[in-house]
């Protein structure tokens, strides 16, 4: 078996010519959602299934990943923490704030938080950043996967409140949550346009790519908050 580091904290394992995406398990011995644990040279990896994770898919689609081991990440739409658990693996020296508004799902997420030292659970509606502004610090990266019709608004207001200057926004846009009938290409174009010009903060879209074949009709996007350096 050979191990290649695709990005800091993210690995591609080559097991008998099969390539597997993985992160180093910071809690060896514990599998989070039934994923495979793979040992190599005394190090335990957790398999990361890109078809169950937008971030995983973005990595495989060669997105520039702004999440570093010491980043502070604000994750909107954490669900039960499938992806958050891998982010937690990457953040060996960082912290992820995981926002989720469904109490039912939050129950599972809390179990994950109980196991891991670097996830802060927040039961709240991402539409209302003021309702968690007393908890969340400035973030280097905002990752958002909420599948809501107003995805770009949610991204914009959260960036406004929490994104560090020059911080990065990573967005998974699901076209069907925005418009069920329009063509995804059109929806994506409109969302990118909104993000670039509809809000009172500016984003520079660095990369955008559809996430197929891992996720149909989803667009992945990385943008940087644009700040006027007037002073």
């Amino acid at each position: 078996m050979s191990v290649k580091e695709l990005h800091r904290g993210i690995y591609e394992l080559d097991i008998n010519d099969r390539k597997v995406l993985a992160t180093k398990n910071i809690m060896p011995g514990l599998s989070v959602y039934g994923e495979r644990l793979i040992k190599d040279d005394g190090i335990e990896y957790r398999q990361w299934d890109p078809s169950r994770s937008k971030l995983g898919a973005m990595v495989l689609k060669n997105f520039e990943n702004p999440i570093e081991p010491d980043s502070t990440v604000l994750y909107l739409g954490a669900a039960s923490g499938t992806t958050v658990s891998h982010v937690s693996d990457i953040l060996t020296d960082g912290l992820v704030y995981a926002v989720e508004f469904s109490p039912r799902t939050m129950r599972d997420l809390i179990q994950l938080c109980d196991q891991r030292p670097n996830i802060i659970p927040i039961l709240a509606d991402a539409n209302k950043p003021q309702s968690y502004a007393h908890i969340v610090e400035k973030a280097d990266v905002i990752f958002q996967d909420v599948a809501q019709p107003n995805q770009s608004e949610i991204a914009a207001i959260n960036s406004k409140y929490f994104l560090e200057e020059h911080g990065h926004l990573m967005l998974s846009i699901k076209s069907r949550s925005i418009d069920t009938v329009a063509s995804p290409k059109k929806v994506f174009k409109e969302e990118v346009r909104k993000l670039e010009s509809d809000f009172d903060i500016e984003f520079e879209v660095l990369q955008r790519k559809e996430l197929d074949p891992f996720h149909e009709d989803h667009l992945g996007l990385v943008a940087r908050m644009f700040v006027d350096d007037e002073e």
Partner: protein
Amino acid sequence: MVDMEFTAWFGKIKLDSEGKIEDCDFFDKDPEKLAKLVVELEDDVQAVPLKRADLRDAALECGFVELDEEYDILLRDVCIRAAKSQISQTDTDDSRIIQAVQALDDIDKNVNELSERLFEWYGRYFPELDMTGEELARFVSAYGSRANVPEEHRLSEKASQSMGAELSFADEELLRAFANNICSLYDTRRYIENYINTSMGSVAPNLCNVTGASIGARLMSMAGSLQKLAAFPSSTVQVIGASRALFKHLRSKAPSPKHGIIFNNPVIKNAPWWQRGKLARALASKISLAARTDFYSGELSPSIKEALDRKLESIRRANPNPPKRELQTKPQGKGGKKTHRGKRKGGKR
């Protein structure tokens, strides 16, 4: 100069106009207490200055904690506690909602009876009064005797010229007390309704999204639980609550019931009669799906409502005109009689 105050999870921060820290007032480092505060602040949203010092920087700078790690550990502890307590608070199970729905029905029954009594009783003293229900109760509770109706009131003339009997002081006191009780029942009713609205959002977000909190809760109540509702085929969902209409149909050859309580959804109620059957079928099928999604995943999936809206729209578009062959003059499902308590009947269907 202090410009803004902002409460963070660890204390109150005073900021100047640039967002820099002027002063910091810490809370006790007691995780349980801090968690309670975190929850309160989430519900009671404060104005948050966009320009503000970073929370971690503030905590370190002001000496709430010495080290980054200490901040992480305490914050994590506090937030896990907060989230756990929120879940036990908000994740009320369906049985509590069902109790609330039934309490609502009990109140309706009582309040209607009491209101009718008040109507008759007070009518002896002020027969010209054109009020019923809550309005009447509020009126009696506010004024009592006709003599107390102020001049600027729209009914002051009627009150002074009324042919009703005079109200003795003792009777007036009694009627007022009686009316006060009715008013407080109406208040409780509203309180319960709010409770249902909020809890439905977390217990059955999809049901809520598809047909509204009140009808959704009623469906759960009639089915017995969310689980049972989720297990019903949609043809059953469509007639839940129609049993009274069904008996009426058997007894008196009234039209057979097409819709149960989902008929109360404005989407159907406000539709022309010839579309109602089709609309109800579409609604019932999405209600089924919503109940299942709520029961099995508990996550809001907006696509259910979106698909429903599309379906409804296509039904409307495909059936713009009444069918010609049927020479029906009376719209279905509406009795001929209309009383001033028509509302009560509608609510109970």
